[in-house]
């Protein structure tokens, strides 16, 4: 079955009435991940856009057809470690133990528990939807926010304009935890994303699997709501968000970008990058080029071992 047939037939277990913004990348990611995980799944959605948009539930009503819990911003991976250990004890290791968390709950406040659970190789599939900021609380910066971005805590001021630091590149950090599986994915490349979610689910029965997903955010990034997939595609095409995976400790580029477009082209229709200085633009381009080279080297080394 190809990925379109898979997604056509797999049941959507998330409430149709969730209150995410129009064009939300995170909603798309959540629905696809849980469609593939199916009903034999326990999911945690920590505080963030998804936690705030009614997918857990409201008062006595549930937001999903599968067991769902909103843990703390800071403890999703630890909490699910406990759930996972209990399911191993029950002899029900077939149950998918899944997290869908934003970059704040993943790269910032939740990073310690994430790193701990990854190092212990807990049997969990951890999905991060990275929209580069704390969008649910009003578009504040996070450690994955790109240099020069205009957010509500890195505003355009007369003295300082936008974020002053480069982003933290979390997926590569995660891959160095001796994970079973680590990958990046983008909703613009759905066949690739579906394959990686399926691999992640399978690997989560062996140990910790991590997938870092590009999650375009029209409300926080300031672009037209129908442009999300196009922006995600340009993020991949510009090497701003390279697609790769690590499996059995071997790295592999899953999108061979022969003719990358420029970062200037990627950022031009995104409002949070308006007034990006030439200096910042050059710095982002340089960081992106450097990162892509490093990833390619990692991948080629892995290939040489085969």
């Amino acid at each position, binding site marked *: 079955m190809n990925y379109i047939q898979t997604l056509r037939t797999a049941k959507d277990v998330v409430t149709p009435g969730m209150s995410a913004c129009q064009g939300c990348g995170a909603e798309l990611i959540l629905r696809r991940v849980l469609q593939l995980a199916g009903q034999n799944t326990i999911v945690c959605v920590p505080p963030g856009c998804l936690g705030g948009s*009614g997918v*857990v539930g409201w008062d006595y*009503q549930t937001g999903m057809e599968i*067991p769902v819990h909103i843990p703390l911003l800071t*403890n999703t991976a630890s909490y699910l470690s406990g759930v996972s*250990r*209990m399911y191993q004890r029950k002899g029900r290791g077939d*149950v998918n133990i899944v997290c869908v968390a934003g970059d704040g709950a993943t790269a910032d406040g939740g990073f310690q528990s994430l790193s701990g659970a990854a190092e212990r190789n807990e049997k969990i599939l951890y999905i991060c939807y990275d929209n580069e900021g704390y969008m649910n609380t009003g578009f504040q910066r996070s450690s994955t926010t790109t240099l020069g971005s205009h957010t509500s805590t890195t505003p355009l001021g007369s003295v300082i304009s936008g974020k002053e630091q480069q982003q933290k590149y979390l997926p590569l950090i995660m891959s160095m935890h001796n994970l079973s599986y680590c990958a990046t994915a983008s909703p613009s490349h759905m066949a690739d994303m579906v394959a990686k979610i399926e691999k992640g689910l399978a690997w989560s029965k062996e140990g910790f699997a991590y997938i870092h997903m590009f999650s375009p955010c029209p409300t926080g990034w300031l672009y037209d709501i129908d442009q999300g997939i196009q922006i995600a595609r340009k993020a991949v095409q510009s090497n701003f968000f390279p697609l790769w995976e690590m499996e059995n400790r071997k790295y592999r580029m899953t999108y061979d970008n022969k003719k990358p477009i420029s970062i200037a082209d990627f950022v031009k229709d995104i409002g949070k990058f308006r007034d990006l200085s030439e200096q910042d633009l050059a710095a982002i381009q340089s960081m992106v080029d450097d990162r892509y080279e490093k990833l390619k080297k990692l991948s080629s080394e892995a290939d040489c071992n085969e």
Partner: protein
Amino acid sequence: MGEIKAMTGNTAAAVGAALSRPDVIAAYPITPQSSVVEYLSDLVHNGSIASTLVATESEHSAMSVLQGVASAGGRAFTATSSQGLAFMYEPYYQMSTMRLPMVMALVTREMISPCTVWGGQQDAMSVRDAGWIQLYAENNQEIMDMIIQGYLLSEHKDVLMPVNVCYDGFYLSHLVERVDIPEQSKVDAFLPAVSFDHVVLDPLRPMAVDSLTSGEVLMRYRMSHLEAMQKTLDVLEEVDEKFYAAFGRKYGGAIEEYRCEDAEFVILTIGAMTGTARDAVDYCRDNGTKVGLIKLRYTRPFPQQRLIKALAGKKGFAVIEKSVCYGWNTGPMYVETRSAVSETLSGLSHFSAIGGLGGADISLNHMISVIDTLQASLNTPGQKQTLWLVKE
């Protein structure tokens, strides 16, 4: 009688936990608790117990892992102290508000600053309003017994709250005493397998746990939690009786009264200092002073009715504590004790005594000085100055 062994308070806690057959033990080392989890790690690694061990990267994660374990229907154990408890506070609070049962040994220790690693009860007292049941043990036998009792209480259908078994860092954690170890078969008969269904994470029974909740509904959760806390006052007495029937040891429930019947006035103690207080009471009794002792065993729920009864007809009381209550210039349990007996307070002489902070000793002379000071003030009812038990 079971096997008799000499052991530290931390070993007693670990053995009590092991006898309770937890599904998962998750912990992070911290002075003076570390040897609890070290002992349990040995048991797991040598195959002596069937529990799963999760050595987390922090106390925050230890409590979070166990929240996941309990959500999936398992029995959970951990131990911590002081700064570890402070770091754990976020999931610690949620453990009680999710009404999940577990037992945690809280090896009480002073809070920084200035830097200290020694005893005190400030850590436990600082979280007294986090919805946990909190009880204090006086000796190593009581530590072991209360960990086992703690599970029965915590998992009781009318309770469903996590339990802190608190005991003094170093004074008990590292002190060796004689302990009568309950037989496993008797513990198994006393403590049935954990079973509850208000929180279940299971694909066979899909449930949203912790949906976004409006204030009107949330207040029902809090009302129910507070009511269960009051109900616990009865259940803990039942559990004490049941334990007595099974193992022949009885602790008196929420408080223990020592030589109170004909006493004119009483001192109240918490935890290991009670041993010294017993000797002080005996000594003063020998000299004709009609003093009694109340050992406050449970602070959450607070045993108001038991205290009203125990203090009826007395002329005064002093509460001796290893912690402070900022804003009151007293210890916290002094404030709660005077509140408990507020209807008869005007006729009583009373004060707070604070000592033993940061591992300092509370000596026999300190205890006698509290008794003497209280006795000297009995004819003038009202609150007296806080007495600091510093080096004589």
